[in-house]
């Protein structure tokens, strides 16, 4: 008979609360966000969405990764794409290598999605890391090849989540926002600047981005006080 080849077991530290503790109030909030996203476009097909913010350090990568996990947990075949070609984090979060990824797909005409995606180890969740850092990320993301890649992703998966760089800092998010079904903005309490958010809004409106809503991150107020009691 067949015997499985020994698989090397390693412990990976990942910032995925939805995986580490599914019963925590934080995980519950991500599930609430998932439900609200599904209701946001109940009459339209939502297969591709981007997660962005006005500035750095607001929790885009954490939000996109945790959302990808909760969508996958609900049986939706999800692809998490690290579209932050400048400061990629997704591969590291899931303990994967970043030798090949989105940049390869965009630069190599004959590259196939199935050759660059990686298994996350979570059912229904596939990862496409950023790949080697290119010299011209904005041009690559705005290319015709990107259009074709997004179309290919739509056909292969139920949901594609793009982890994008900040809107105000670079044009990457603007470029991709015009090509996807929905945009989610991450706002962090005490970090997100009001003026930067207003600017981000106008930049996204310029490309007719379909704003689904905002994920309010790092709240110091008790958002789910009753949850603890309910679970007791």
């Amino acid at each position: 008979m067949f015997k499985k080849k020994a698989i090397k077991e390693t412990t990976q530290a990942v910032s995925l609360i939805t995986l580490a503790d599914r019963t925590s109030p934080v995980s519950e909030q991500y599930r609430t966000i998932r439900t609200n996203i599904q209701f946001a476009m109940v009459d339209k097909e939502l297969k591709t969405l981007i997660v962005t913010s006005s500035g750095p350090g607001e929790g885009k990568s954490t939000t996109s990764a945790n959302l990808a996990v909760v969508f996958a947990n609900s049986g939706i075949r999800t692809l998490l794409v690290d579209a932050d070609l400048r400061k990629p984090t997704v591969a590291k979060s899931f303990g994967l290598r970043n030798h090949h990824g989105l940049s390869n797909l965009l630069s190599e005409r004959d590259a196939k999605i199935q050759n660059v995606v990686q298994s996350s180890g979570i059912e229904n969740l596939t990862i496409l890391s950023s790949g080697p850092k290119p010299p011209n990320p904005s041009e690559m993301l705005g290319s015709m090849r990107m259009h074709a890649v997004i179309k290919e992703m739509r056909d292969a998966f139920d949901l594609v989540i793009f982890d994008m760089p900040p809107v105000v800092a670079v044009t990457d998010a603007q470029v991709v926002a015009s090509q996807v079904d929905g945009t989610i903005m991450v706002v962090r309490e005490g970090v997100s600047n009001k003026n930067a958010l207003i600017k981000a809004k106008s930049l996204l409106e310029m490309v007719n981005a379909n704003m689904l809503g905002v994920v309010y991150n790092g709240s110091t107020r008790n958002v789910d006080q009753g949850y603890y009691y309910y679970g007791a």
Partner: protein
Amino acid sequence: MEETISLQEIFGIIKKRLALIITLMFIGLGFSAVMTFVVMTPKFSSSTQLIVKLPRAAEGTNSNVNDVNFNLYMITTYKDFITTSNTLAESTQEIVARETNFKGSAADIQAMLQVTQEQNSQMFSIKATSEDPKIAQAVANTAAQVFQEQAKETLEVDKVSIIAPAPLNVSPISPNNKLNLLIGLVLGLMVGVGISFLVELLDKTVKDDKFIRDVLGYSVLGTVPEMTAKELSGQVIQKPVETANVRNNVTNPTPNNPVPQTRRQRNRV
């Protein structure tokens, strides 16, 4: 847009900046302690009590209320005489300089002297304040004696009686240690609270989701609370990572299996 601040928000700001406020309170306390115990020189005072009688009315005439009122009225004159008379100050200065190690001028003597009177009383006190309790005592007693001598010839006052000579007071009248420390503490608190509100006013970051709804006009999909240390520390998960090259081991997507899955390498037994 008009911004309002609730009582809850005020307490929230204070709670948020409590460390800063407490720090500044202690800085204020420390500053006032240094000022009180190191910088400020303690001052001592000593008072001598006197009573003055005007010349008696002529024989056969009755002393009436007007005389008493005039007596009281004259005490104001005595006050001015003691505090402004150069001759009194000079005489006092000479005597005090002889008796103690006082090296001040007549003007310094005038600055040290103060006259107080109880309301509607013919008694009054000469109070002297100095950095040396012995000098304060000497100035008060000497000034009373000099006034006693000079009042007769200058003011034609019949009798000046020294009721109680000035004692030696070794406990300082200033600085008031407790009051100064309290002032330092309160000032520190006020500065701390002031800075806290100023920082909050100048802080242009988002404080609550009200800004998202009211200004940006976006809906809030969800509010993710700040993760606790326990939640952050619990984020290590056991996950098998395949060492084989994943890129070369994926199946093509099919309608039944649209998600490319990693093909596990198997060996025949």
